[in-house]
């Protein structure tokens, strides 16, 4: 078994909360190493309180076992995951599904910035959007409203 085969298999696992993107699109797989019969995966959680984390970890183990290898999924609790790790393909899939992808990490997030109109509506592309609520249906998202097409939408938080 090669590392490329493992990456390909993991790329078929959907995010449990937003199944339009895969765990590889989400950037939570930091490394894959094949050591004879054992496959070692470094998994970096998104938000620490996210209930999807166990589901992702178990789905990765099950998929690797299906390939006939012994899975070893290591959960890495450091700052190496950021929304910047979502792949360009992942960002486009999010946008097409009505979720505004996160803005780049940059200099850090401020209230003034969140309340500004620098966020683009995933439906019509307008930047004339307003913050409705810093928190949304899951901890990783905020709620915004597009003043142009009158559509509320979910904006990924930048972390």
């Amino acid at each position, binding site marked *: 078994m090669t590392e490329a085969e493992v990456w390909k298999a993991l790329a078929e696992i959907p995010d449990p909360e937003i199944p339009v993107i895969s765990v590889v699109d989400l950037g939570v797989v930091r490394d894959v190493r094949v050591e004879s019969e054992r496959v070692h995966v470094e998994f970096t959680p998104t*938000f*620490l*309180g*996210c209930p999807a984390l166990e589901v992702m970890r178990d789905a990765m183990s099950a998929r690797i076992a299906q390939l006939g290898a012994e899975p070893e999924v290591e959960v890495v*609790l*450091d*700052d*190496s*995951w*950021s929304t910047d790790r979502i792949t360009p393909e992942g960002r486009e899939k999010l946008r097409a599904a009505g979720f505004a992808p996160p803005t780049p990490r940059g200099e*850090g*997030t*401020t*209230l003034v910035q*969140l309340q500004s109109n620098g966020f683009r509506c995933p439906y019509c592309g307008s930047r004339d959007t307003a913050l*409705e*609520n*810093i*928190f*949304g*249906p*899951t*901890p990783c998202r905020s*709620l915004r409203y597009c003043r142009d097409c009158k559509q509320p939408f979910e904006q990924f*938080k930048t*972390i």
Partner: protein
Amino acid sequence: MSELLLEIADDELILGWRDSEWTGIAPFLEEDVAFSSIAQNEVGHARALYELAARDLGTTADALAFDREPSEYRCSELVELRLPEWERTIARHVLYEQADAERLERLKASDDPEVAGLAAKIDREEIYHRLHAEMWHERLKDEPRYVEALEALRPLVGRRNGHSPELTTLWEEMTSVRRSQPAGTTW
């Protein structure tokens, strides 16, 4: 170091439970959502911190979170109180987030790379709690009831030399399911 990790984990766990008490009954829907999300984050932070401490102490995160007596928790009195008044909840939120930010800054500079890494990750999520607290502080800062609540709660921020009786009540609720099962039950 494990003592400091426990102090922070206990603060986050207990505050997470208190924040979750607003689910469904906050003054408006946006705040139901906000406090529920914040509670979920805080409990998630507590779990990660307990896991790190558990490795040093040779136990498990669940045992640290739920199998100790109330007197063994190291949380501050600020997080223990049941605060059904909105202005007091917001005052606690503002005071806690300020103190937590300073503590996380120190932890991010730790010599232990696991501790520093986890602190940096937690801090990224806490930014949104701080922005939420800042937004409410701006709204309420001239409101006498809020100003009074801030002054009343401020002395409790770092007070860890005893517990409010309210912690025991919360502990009973928090651990009732776990205590109803024989030790060693797999969940």
